[in-house]
């Protein structure tokens, strides 16, 4: 009992840290197997929620490890349930506007490239960059800026 409890607690804590969730299937219910990376939650309608927003460093289009993990899950999901997706790239307000458009596109492309690498059909992915035109949050602090350097998967 204690073992299961601690396993769940450990997994929960880890999933909090990684911010990811998995749709690993019913096998998990049989044994208290500790999944080292993700935790799954199941709603009644059987949909799974993966992070759809990925963040970046200033002037960079490099994906974080967390982003990669989430994207791999997305790739799997799309493999079984193919649909068209739209990747919207954004940048924070600093610097020039058109350069930020290019940066947003870079980021969206990075996400697209990973998905394609994971087997997603390229023609089902649309990428658009909004540059700094549509900020998620208003303000001029590093905190706000970090929230705006993103790609949204829709």
């Amino acid at each position, binding site marked *: 009992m204690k073992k299961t409890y601690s396993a769940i607690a450990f997994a929960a804590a880890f999933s909090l840290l990684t911010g990811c969730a998995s749709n690993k299937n019913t096998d998990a219910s049989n044994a208290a197997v500790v999944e080292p990376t993700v935790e799954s939650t199941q709603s009644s309608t059987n949909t799974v929620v993966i992070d759809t927003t990925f963040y970046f460093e200033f*002037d960079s289009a490099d994906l974080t490890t967390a982003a990669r993990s989430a994207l791999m899950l997305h790739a799997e999901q799309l493999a079984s349930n193919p649909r068209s997706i739209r990747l919207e790239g954004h940048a924070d*307000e*600093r*610097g*020039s*506007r*058109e*350069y930020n*458009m*290019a*940066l947003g*596109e*870079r980021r969206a492309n990075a996400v697209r490239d990973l998905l394609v690498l994971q087997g997603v059909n390229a023609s089902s992915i649309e*990428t*658009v*960059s*909004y*540059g700094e*035109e*549509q900020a998620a949050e*208003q*303000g*001029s602090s590093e905190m706000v800026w970090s929230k705006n350097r993103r790609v949204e998967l829709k």
Partner: protein
Amino acid sequence: MIKKLPSAVIKNLIVVVTLSLVALQASANLFIEINRGNNNPTPIAIVPFAGANGLLEDIQAIVSDDLVRSGFFDSIPKADMLAFPKSQAEVVYRDWKMLGASFLLVGELTNLGDKYSVRYQLFDVLAQKPILNATVSGGSNGLRDIAHAISDAVYEKLTGIRGIFSTKMLYVQDLKRPSASRYRLVYADVDGARPRVLLSGSQPILSPSWSADGKRITYVSFETTRPAIYIMELATGRKTQMTNFKGLNGAPSFSPDGSRLALVLSKDGSPDIYVLDIASRALTRVTSDQYIDTEPNWSTDGNSVIFTSNRGGSVQIYQVNLQNGRPERLTFEGDYNARPRVSPDGKSLVMVHRSNGVFHIASQDIASGNMRILTETYLDESPSIAPNGAMLLYATQHNKRGVLGAVSMDAGVKFRLPSTEGDVREPAWAPYF
């Protein structure tokens, strides 16, 4: 035949000439060099024009605001004026000198029924003489234009530089709330008056830019849910979509002769500079690499394009000759230089420049490479140079709102244009036309 002068005469001659020269030397020949001055604005008294009371526009206030905003003038307050002369005969120079005015502007407005005619005179108060005497007229809707024409004439006479008070600008307004017209492309007088919305929508509008003849503008709009480049004819309002490529369609810029657009497309992999022939729609690729190349601006001779690129590892400004060349780097100071704009005389560049983590507008002399930071505000972007090359507009923030700022090219004058609602940004200063 000239007789030879007797020696006695010569002797006397020498004596007298020497004596005279000695007497001459006794007078002063002191030379003093004045090699510094002040940066103070010149005080000018602008007297309310006779016959201009109660009109829809206050000509005196417009002229005064224009000249003060240029940064080179101080306007003597109306309340301090002892008299309101309207012509030379009524001017008592001493009175104006006492007020501290160096110059005096007076005038008289006549209503001719279908138009107004204003006769104005400018006086040098210290030298006590008139230096400008002219008449300007305009339709009854043209009071602001009349006032700006007077400001231009006074400014040019006293500074030697053509005025920009009658010029126009474009800017983008973002209401910052969901709306069918959240984003607007606005056309207005350069002092912000008489704004006219040319385009509005719920999707972003950006990068407005003028053709050299002032008849067309180009811009990027997301109205199709993707960025696309458009050209609008100002007289008719007619819009033409010029691109619809996959990926980026951005940063359009008219060539000096108005026949081509330089623009950015990423359809072939990464953002590159292309040139589009407007009439034939023929597309020519200018850069071809895996880097970000964007924000093209034409050189004044139309042979090169100056653009932003991160090909060197950091964001810098490059120039490429359209016939042949490889891109050549222009900026070497600072770790971020972008969004170049060439001055009308082709001698300098303005750009967004990061220094100590702060984004300012900087100017760079193309020949020497000397760079100067022009603004003291930060988070500055989108510089646009005035057609007289003496000032520039740019976008900045003030009290958490996007506003337009203006600074002179010698970094001496700074002021802000307030926004009416939401954010304003991306100013594009119209050319003289």
